[in-house]
């Protein structure tokens, strides 16, 4: 590779957003997400047929918009990177086919990327002015590292020996953290998606929550906040399990059960729902922090901890993870807000390190043989 940083076009259509980004090396020149253009972030969850149609309709214009914003011509693009899994099969297909055709016809180098590697490395993205939390050529000093990846489809703790070598240490046995938010929101009758609305309601919780949290540092670390402020007794999932796996289906069931009682008890009054939302977030957050803390203790050699995925937009969860990691003395990294949820810039940054460290791109006929992998693992 020449000393001039390569121009990378990156595409992600793994779920409901059509995203295209252009990077020069680590710097993002443009990152366009279809739902940002629309007023409504979602037009109704992920309805597969609509998702495919929307991706098909969007991708050309999102691509053109990204080129325009990046002020880059098609000819200047050297690499084309695209998510080939995991995700919704028919949604993945649209982005993959678009990228394959583009790369093949225009004789570009092609790199299929694992969506989760994107979340893993999103904190490495530099903005258009080459600013970011991780300095150039300092990347290797941050490894080995741990990552906590939390989204609608995943809840994983990953050990990264180097920038490109990953091992899943623990994962959810059933529902993902983001899915738990969606399902509990459905039980609470507050709509979809669940994360933002539950977080909004939690913001109206009783003051005792912030009081309890401000006193947290002085308290016994093992004592869950639920004992201080939780009146519903929601369980902290997998508190006592020895491994690094997660499980949110038990919490979901507990929520359903408690809520039935609350509805009967309070009838018209729904003020309980604010504290309930807060306690639910706490249970999810504690479950994540207990396992992350355990992982850090089991891997004392790590230098840093990365957080990624859409659920890392939750301010309560981020606060708890940040405090935990800082207390452990490890470096803590979280992507810029716009790169936490699904986006193509993170696919671009993953491609950048694949190019730099592994030189594993494809060319010519080999591009056409790449197939989608909806259940791909890291």
């Amino acid at each position, binding site marked *: 590779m020449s000393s001039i940083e390569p121009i990378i076009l990156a595409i992600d259509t793994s*779920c409901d957003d059509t995203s295209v980004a252009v990077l020069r090396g680590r710097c993002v020149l443009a990152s366009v997400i279809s739902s940002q*253009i*629309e*007023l*409504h*972030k*979602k*037009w*109704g*969850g*992920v*309805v*597969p*047929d*609509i998702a*495919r149609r929307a991706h098909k309709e969007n991708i050309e214009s999102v691509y053109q918009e990204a080129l325009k914003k990046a002020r880059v011509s098609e000819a200047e693009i050297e690499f084309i990177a695209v998510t080939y899994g*995991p*995700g*919704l*099969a*028919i949604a993945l297909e649209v982005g993959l086919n678009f990228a394959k055709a583009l790369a093949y016809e225009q004789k570009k180098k092609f790199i299929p990327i694992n969506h989760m590697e994107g979340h893993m490395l999103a904190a490495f993205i530099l903005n258009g002015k080459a600013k970011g939390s991780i300095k150039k050529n300092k990347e290797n000093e941050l490894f080995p590292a741990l990552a906590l990846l939390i989204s*609608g*489809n995943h809840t994983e703790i990953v050990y990264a020996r180097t920038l490109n070598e990953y091992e899943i240490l623990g*994962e*959810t*046995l*059933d*529902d*993902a953290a*983001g*899915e738990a938010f*969606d*399902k509990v*929101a*459905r*039980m609470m*009758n*507050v*709509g*979809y*998606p669940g994360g*933002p*609305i539950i977080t*909004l*309601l939690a913001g109206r919780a009783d003051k005792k929550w912030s009081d309890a949290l401000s006193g947290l540092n002085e308290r016994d670390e093992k004592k869950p906040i639920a004992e201080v402020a939780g009146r519903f007794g929601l369980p902290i999932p997998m508190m006592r399990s020895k491994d690094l796996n997660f499980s949110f*289906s*038990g919490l*979901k*069931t*507990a*929520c*359903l*059960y408690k809520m039935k009682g609350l509805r009967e008890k309070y009838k018209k009054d*729904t003020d309980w*729902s604010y504290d309930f939302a807060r306690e639910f977030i706490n249970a999810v957050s504690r479950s994540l922090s207990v396992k992350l803390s355990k992982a850090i203790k089991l891997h004392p050699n790590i230098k840093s901890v990365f957080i990624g995925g859409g659920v890392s937009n939750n301010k309560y969860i981020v606060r708890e993870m940040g405090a935990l990691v800082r207390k452990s003395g490890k470096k803590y990294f979280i992507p810029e807000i716009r790169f936490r949820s699904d986006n193509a810039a993170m696919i671009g940054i993953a491609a950048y390190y694949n190019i730099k460290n592994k030189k594993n791109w494809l060319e010519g006929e080999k591009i056409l043989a790449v197939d989608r992998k*909806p*259940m791909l693992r890291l």
Partner: protein
Amino acid sequence: MERIKYTEKNSKDIIDKVVTVLKAGGIFVFPTETCYGIGANATSQKSIDKLFSYKTRREGKPLSIAVSGKKMAIKYVDLNEIADNLYENYLPGPITVVSRGRGKVAKGVESEYGTLGIRIPDHELVLDIIREFGKPITATSANISYLPKPYSIDALLKDMPKKNLELIDLIIDAGELPHREVSTVVDTTMNNLNIMRRGQIDLAAELASQKSIMSAQTNSAEQTSKFGGMNMLKYIDEPLDKPLVFFLIGELGTGKTQFSKGLASHLGIKEMVKSPTFTILNEYEYQLSRRKGKFIHVDTWRIDSLKDLESIGLDGYLTAGNIIAIEWADKFFDDLKTKIKISGGKIINVVFDYLAEDIRSIKTYE
């Protein structure tokens, strides 16, 4: 363009001026509990067209509207149980509630899927304006598309092209607004199980009138999973020339995924079988003595029609040797049943009921 400073004393005067602007098809900038918004009569095509020219928005992107209360909202959207809960308990406030629209607003306000986002701003002046005007106004942020959300009029007007500025008829300046986040959008049209599963009570009754093949009361996730394994054991000798389909019927959190784990485990699948809610369909390979094929784990929770299930390729999996478990199969019970009958497949109905926090009743019917 007129710019008025808002003091609580001049609200009457402001309301009169705004209503005049709205009636004439004009657009105006107003404060909300989040950022500044741009208002137009949501029912007038002329006003909305003017708003679109101002926003320089691409066509096909919906707008949200502000109403004065639930009573006004009902005229423009169908409220279901979820929307009703939000209107009754959580509004006014920074929440945009998306419901199915009734086509009573100007073209371009509803989304192309016929949904409409409604907000009740927690701002007395705005509510008074809407009450006085008697119709909803648009509640989109006042910035031109692609520019940042404005929290002060100076920020809004800075570098605004003259042609956009000239379209604004009136600005209500309430000074610098607190930098609160924009409203949270929630969709209530998704997974409206009560409507979709209208026939569910009949279905449960119909199944219950039959004699169950197997039944269990489980009191842990492990037991539910084990019962799944027992079901698989019972049906594993079904002929190989047709697919075997489990319809898993039960509320959230009653053990459908745990049961599926048991099915998979009995088939010798080593991969972790997780909830397919997000990916809708998960595919695993299995081989058990002479039986070999795919185990397909489907969750219809996030989808609205049989057509969507077809679009993820369900038909292609209805082939010999495949074992398919469908969570929330009751959402499209009759259609699915017909489809599977045509493929020659065998259907096993599994009904999950919730008895107490840790106790489930699970019954298997053919």
